């Protein structure tokens, strides 16, 4: 069909245009590079690590960084550099699956609430608010303690809790779009409800959801690391940044190298995601930090 053909051409070139715009911004370039590096390292780390992450050597226990063990060794004499390289695999896998799930279910419910509107929407949103007012860690711990700490529990748990704030965003974006004249115009032409949602609403809400998803991803990574730090995430001896920080914390005064590696790795990934999300928002033209007014 000519119409859809032109449409897809336009949207294809739009995606490329946005990507170009993204990398042309310093924050987008730096952020995206950091994220891509992390993802590549997570994939190839098992093949390039200098030492086995499980290998314990009591002679090396808490030894300083050296030319062989670049970041020294931890309290069990394991190579910190190797463990840091591999410590993001679990986190990236879990959050990489949970983030899209959170955006999809939160986005779906949010759009639905936004479309329903009226009193039902108000009541449901107060339920969401009530839910959001509870500390997240408490809610998550309850579920994890009940169901265990495997990936099969962590992914749905994170996806569920991080989808709730997405409801708010998707609902607000829906409210913004359905008040606009092009939706009225489609309605006045006589288009059906599904057609209006699919063709008029979704393309405009998806931009917001994409940026929201990127932000959620970084928060989810922090949450995952926090769970590991508390001992509810990854089980030893699998390396994980949160767990490594937790383990090395006690020796920080005389062996700080155990903490420095995972801290730098975790923060560089989170900063990278945040920078990318900011640049993406600017490239999509939905930047929340507006220019300074007069």
């Amino acid at each position, binding site marked *: *069909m*000519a*119409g*859809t*053909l*032109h*449409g897809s*051409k*336009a*949207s294809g070139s*739009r995606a490329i245009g946005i990507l170009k715009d993204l990398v*042309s911004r310093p924050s987008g370039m730096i952020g995206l590079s950091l994220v891509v590096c992390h993802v590549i390292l997570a994939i190839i780390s098992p093949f390039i690590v200098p030492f086995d992450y499980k290998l314990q050597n009591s002679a090396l226990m808490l030894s300083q960084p050296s030319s062989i063990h670049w970041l020294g060794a931890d309290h069990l004499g394991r190579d910190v550099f190797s463990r840091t390289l591999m410590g993001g695999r679990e986190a990236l896998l879990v959050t990489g699956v949970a983030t899209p799930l959170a955006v999809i279910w939160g986005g779906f419910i949010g759009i639905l609430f936004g479309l329903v509107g009226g009193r039902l929407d108000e009541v449901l949103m107060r339920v969401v608010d009530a839910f959001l007012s509870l500390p997240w860690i408490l809610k998550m711990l309850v579920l994890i303690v009940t169901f265990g700490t495997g990936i099969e529990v962590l992914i749905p748990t994170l996806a569920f809790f991080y989808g709730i704030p997405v409801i708010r965003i998707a609902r607000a974006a829906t409210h913004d779009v359905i008040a*606009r*004249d*092009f939706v*009225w*115009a*489609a*309605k*006045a*032409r*006589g*288009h059906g409800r599904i057609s209006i949602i699919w*063709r*008029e609403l979704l*393309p*405009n809400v998806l931009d917001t959801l994409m940026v929201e998803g990127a932000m959620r991803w970084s928060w989810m990574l922090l949450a995952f690391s926090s769970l590991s730090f508390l001992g509810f995430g990854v089980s030893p001896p699998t390396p994980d940044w949160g767990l490594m920080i937790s383990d090395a914390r006690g020796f920080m005064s005389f062996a700080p190298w155990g903490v420095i590696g995972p801290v730098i790795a975790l923060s560089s990934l989170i900063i990278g995601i945040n920078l990318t999300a900011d640049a993406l928002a600017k490239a999509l033209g939905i930047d929340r930090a507006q*220019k*300074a007014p*007069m």
Partner: protein
Amino acid sequence: MTTQPFISVNGLSVGYTSRTGKIIRVLRNVSLEINRGESVGLVGESGSGKSTLALAAMGYFKRGLRPLSGDVHFDSVDMLALDRDELQAIRGGRLALIPQNSGQSLTPTMRIGQQLTEALRLHSNLDAGQFSDRVVELLTQVRLPDPAKLVSRYPHELSGGQQQRVAIAMALAGEPDALLLDEPTTGLDVTTQAHILELLRDLARDRNMAMLYVSHDLGAISRVCDQVVVMYAGEAVLTGTTRQVLLAPRHPYAHGLLTSIPRLDQTRMPMALDGRPPMPGEAITGCAFADRCALADNKCLTEAPEMVGLSSGELVRCFKSDMIDRMPVPSRQPSRLNRPDDKTGDTALDLRDVAISYARDNWLRTVLSPADGGPPATVDNIGISIEKGETLGLVGESGSGKSTILKAIAGLISPKRGHIMLHGQTALTPRVEDRPAVNLRQIQMIFQNPDDSLNPRHAVAQILAQPLQLYFGLSGDALHEASVSMLERVRLGAHYLDRLPSQLSGGEKQRVAIARAFAAEPEIVLCDEVTSALDVSVQAAVLDLLDELKTQQGTTYIFVSHDLAVVKAISDRVAVLYQGRLCEIGSAEAVYTAPFHPYTDVLLGAVLEPDPDVAPKLIADDVVELSPPARGCPFQRRCSRKLGTICDSEMPPARQLRAGHVINCHIPADEL
């Protein structure tokens, strides 16, 4: 001039560095002088750099922009050499800005009194004890009613005009020597606008201030300014007194702007200024206006004209300034398909006693006071019959229910009472969801702002495909062909199919919106303020297009606008609405000449003509009423010719004056 002017801008260029490292100049070598007690108007189409120049005059540049060359002096102080703190001390105090949308410039959570006190604390030398007296004094100065009560109100409790007055009062708090006004009346109702302009005029005169007035509205400029600077593509192209520029413009662009404005005293269609101004950074050889100019020759295309002084005193950037009288003038009459002598008599649409209410039924009130029928309906007693091929103009201020009536016809709001009949026989189903497909196709709507009515994520091809697929089931080559032919009918080429709305200019977007409406081959097109978001030159082109499409297809238009001159240019019949009630209806000629309904008189009196010799006639106050009165004449509270209690208690009778000219008023027909 012997003394240094109070504000002077000298050879100022402002620009930014693009992503590719090129320097893009937004303002090019502009000079400007304003003396105390003098008011200078800056006019030009959007994107001409007029706002950038006004902000530069207070040493402010939007993010990314920076001065490239030239200087700006305010009372002999070099504004571009000052640091942040020094600028801050001048801005808001000695040099105040009144922005376009003051509703947004007031803090929503602060009471009016607090906001003004804040301004006084920052910009005046008064003791804290004197603040509250001074606040009341300032509010009185801007002629706000009951200032003592007003101080405890929040901005959202005020009307747009009142908010604008508060913004002016805030600007006056620092006893400024100069005012910068950036489209201060755009978006306000005609009567409010006229009152605000009178206020500004008086203030400038009484306080001997220098004023820089930025506007696209030559009517407003003619009311307030002594001098006018016409901007085009970042350059000043004509500088002269208001009288010189508006009555005998010596630049083809200024001439074109003036002829593109619809006037009340004309029955002709305004003339469109074709083409578009060059974008900042676009390579310009020769005169920037050459490709849109009827007088341009080879020299204009290759050589850039300098600003030269004329013997009459103006400065003009044009080689042909002595040939302006050879410019074409508007001559085309609008197509009046429906002349009295060839009436078809077929009714296209019939509104029968339509009432529309936004108020929801409240069971509590129904139980407590069943006798009281709730608040009066937003729109009531509308009975209008529209003939096939006719253009009916609906005019009135904001809140007059014009758009509400259109929405009811389109099926987006259900009337509380009454019927809308198609072809005089089929009653239209109230809700658009329940209407049969054929009725949906027959009625199409064009919205005010194409930025909002075109989905930003759809390319033009998708936008046009929507009606073509929905109503005619077209696909493949047939769809493509139909889309291209629609684009050609709105004078756009096939290469527009791939573009997104963000890649189009305002006028092009509105053409696409028109093409989308006409793709349905409608019988009735509802036009909701379709030109008010556009520049005047573009407005003329859109009006021309609408008129042409109507001639080709015999379409019936219902044309809603707050601009009386625009309505006059395009309409066969005009209905004047106030608070959702009909005041007057008749042929365009009859409505725009005496006798008038008192409200029509107020509206017409407030229209600003781009002519310094025509002063607006301000009759009633610019009070904004939020809801219609429960009984009696809708205009009772503002009417200057009110007869007495009869106006408060009884609906005015419909007085038939001539064939089809009806005025709803208690005043007897021969005294109107």
